[in-house]
C-alpha cells in the first residue's frame, strides 16, 4: 500500500471535487437570497410575514426526501420550472450536478438565513437611522452599515450551510439520482461503497476524507469569523 494510502483514487477525487463544486455553487447562489430575506424578516413588517418565515424554514423541518421529491416535480423535464428553464435557457438541471447544487442550496438555505437574520437583528437599527440622517440612501445604508455589521453572521451562515451542503444526501439522491461524475458527491459515494460487497476499506477512506474536509472547513470558518469580528468591532 504505502503511497496508495495517501493518494486519492479517481473515484475519490471525482466525488471530492464534485462535492466541493456543488457546495460552493450552492452557497454562492443562496447567499444573496439569504441576505435579502434576512433583511426583509429582520427589518420590515408586512402582511404574511410569519407565513413567509414558515415557508423559508420548511426545508429544515421536512424530510430531505420530501424536498428532493418536490424539486423533482418542479424541476423535472416536464415540471413547470424545469420546462421553463429548458425552453428559455436550454438548461436542464435534472440528473446533473446543477440539480445537486439546487438541492443542496434549498436544504441548507434555512441554516444560512437564520444565522444571518440573528446577526442582523443584533445590529442597532439606530445606526441605520443615523446613516439616513447623514444623507445615505437605503442602498448605501445596506451596503455600508447593515451588511458590514452583519458580517459575523454572514460568515457563520456560509460555514453552516457549506457544511450542510457537503453532507446533503436525501434530497440529492431523490432529485438527481446517483450518477458517477455528475451527481455522486461524497455522501453518495459512501452510500455506493457501503452497498458494494467487500468495499469496507473504500467506505472507510471516504469517511476519512469527509471528516478531514469538514474539519478544514470548520477551521477556515473559525479564522474568518475571528477576523471579521475584529474588523467589525475594532480590536
Amino acid at each position, binding site marked *: 500500500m504505502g503511497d496508495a494510502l495517501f493518494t486519492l483514487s479517481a473515484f475519490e477525487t471525482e466525488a471530492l471535487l464534485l462535492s466541493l463544486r456543488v457546495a460552493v455553487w450552492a452557497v454562492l447562489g443562496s447567499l444573496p437570497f439569504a441576505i435579502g430575506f434576512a433583511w426583509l424578516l429582520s427589518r420590515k413588517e408586512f402582511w404574511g410575514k410569519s407565513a413567509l418565515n414558515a415557508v423559508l424554514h420548511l426545508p429544515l423541518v421536512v424530510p430531505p426526501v420530501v424536498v428532493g421529491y418536490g424539486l423533482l416535480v418542479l424541476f423535472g423535464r416536464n415540471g413547470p420550472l424545469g420546462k421553463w428553464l429548458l425552453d428559455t435557457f436550454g438548461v436542464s438541471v435534472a440528473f446533473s450536478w446543477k440539480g445537486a447544487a439546487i438541492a443542496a442550496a434549498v436544504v441548507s438555505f434555512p441554516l444560512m438565513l437564520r444565522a444571518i437574520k440573528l446577526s442582523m437583528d443584533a445590529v*442597532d437599527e*439606530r*445606526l441605520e*437611522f*443615523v*446613516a*439616513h*440622517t*447623514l*444623507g*445615505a*440612501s437605503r442602498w448605501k445604508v445596506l451596503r*455600508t*452599515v447593515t451588511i*458590514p*455589521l452583519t458580517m459575523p453572521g454572514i460568515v457563520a451562515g456560509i460555514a453552516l450551510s457549506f457544511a450542510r451542503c457537503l453532507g446533503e444526501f436525501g434530497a440529492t439522491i431523490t432529485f438527481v439520482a446517483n450518477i458517477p461524475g455528475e451527481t455522486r458527491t461524497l455522501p453518495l459515494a459512501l452510500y455506493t461503497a457501503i452497498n458494494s460487497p467487500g468495499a469496507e476499506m473504500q467506505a472507510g477512506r471516504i469517511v476519512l476524507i469527509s471528516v478531514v474536509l469538514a474539519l478544514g472547513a470548520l477551521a477556515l470558518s473559525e479564522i474568518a469569523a475571528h477576523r471579521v469580528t475584529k*474588523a*467589525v*468591532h*475594532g*480590536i
Partner: protein
Amino acid sequence: MASDLQIDITLARDGFTLQANTQIGSGITVVTGPSGAGKSTLIGAIAGAVKPDRGRISLNDHIFFDTASRRHLRPAARNIGYVLQDSLLFPHMSVKQNLLYGSRKSSTWTVDDIAKILEIDGLLARRPKQLSGGERRRVAIGRALMTNPQLLLLDEPLANLDATRRRAILPLIERLRDEFDLPIIYVTHAWSEIIRLADRLIVMKDGQITNQGTLSEVLATDDIGAELGLDGSVIEATVLGHDNEQGLSTLSSTSGQLHIAQIVDQPGSNVRLFIGAADVALALSRPVGLSVQNILEATIIDIRPGTPPVVNIDLALNDGQVLRSRVTPRAVESLGLTKGQSVYALIKSVALDKDLLHHPL
C-alpha cells in the same frame, strides 16, 4: 442668514400625546422638562425618526412634514445633523471614516477643520471602541457637521459624562453656534447646561410646551424655576482675573465684583452665573463685618407675595439685569422695602455649574 424652524404638530402614541407649536430661530434653543415630557419625541419628529399624526414642520422654505399636502420628507433629504445621547458611531469604521460618511462636496469644512475645532485631530485613525465617552460625543457632533446641516439637533449629547468632560465640551458647542451660524436645538435636563448654553428655552411637560422664551424670561416666571429646580436668576458677568493661590476667580459686573470658586474661562470672557433666589439676602446699607463677600448694588423693581411665608422680590442691577430674591413678609415689613428703593443684594452662593453650587463664598 437667519433661520426659521416652524413646528406645529400633534402626535399620539400609546396614551401619550405630544402637541407642540413653536418657532425656533438661530442660536441655541434648549428644550428641557422632566423625563417623558416629549422632548426626544419632538426632536425625533424634526429629524424624521417619528411621523406626527398631523401638522406641519418646515425649515425656512423647506417643508419637512405637512399633512395638508401629504408630505413626509425622508430623514436623508432633510439635511439635519442629529446627535443622540449614545453617540452611535459606526463601530466598523475609523474616526476619519465616520467623519467622512456624510460629507458632501459642498461642505465648507474639511475633516481637518472639524477635527481641529472639536479637538479630535489626534484621534482620526482610531476606532470608536478606543475612544473615551467624551471623545465619542465630539466625533458624533463632527460627523453631523460634515454634512453641512441647516440645523443641528443634539439630544442630551453630554448625558452620562462626568463634570470635567462636560465642562470641556460646553465651550466647543458655543463655538459651533458662533462659527457655523447654525441653529442648534439642544435637549437636556442638566441645568448647568441650560444656564451655560440657552439663548432660548423651551420647557415641556406631559407632551405640551408649558413655557418658552429667552432664558431670563422663562426663569422670571415664578413657578417654572421651582419646577426645573432653577429657582433663581441668571446673571452675566465678565471674568476679571484668577487667583490661583486662593482658588478664586473675580468677575465684574456694573453692580460690583463677584468672587467665585476658580473657573477655566479666560479673563475678558463673559460667563453666566446662576444665583438662587433663596441665596440672595437684602440690606439697606452696605454691610460691614460680614462673611458674605459678594455684595451688589441693586434697585427693587417688583415685590410679589409668593407661596406663604415667602415674598418674591425682583431687583434690577445697574445694567438692568434682573436678580430674583426671596425673603419673609416680616423682613419686608421691618426693612420697609418698597418698589424703587436702592438696596444691597448679599449673595450667599453663586453657581456656574452644579458642582459649584454648594461652595458659598
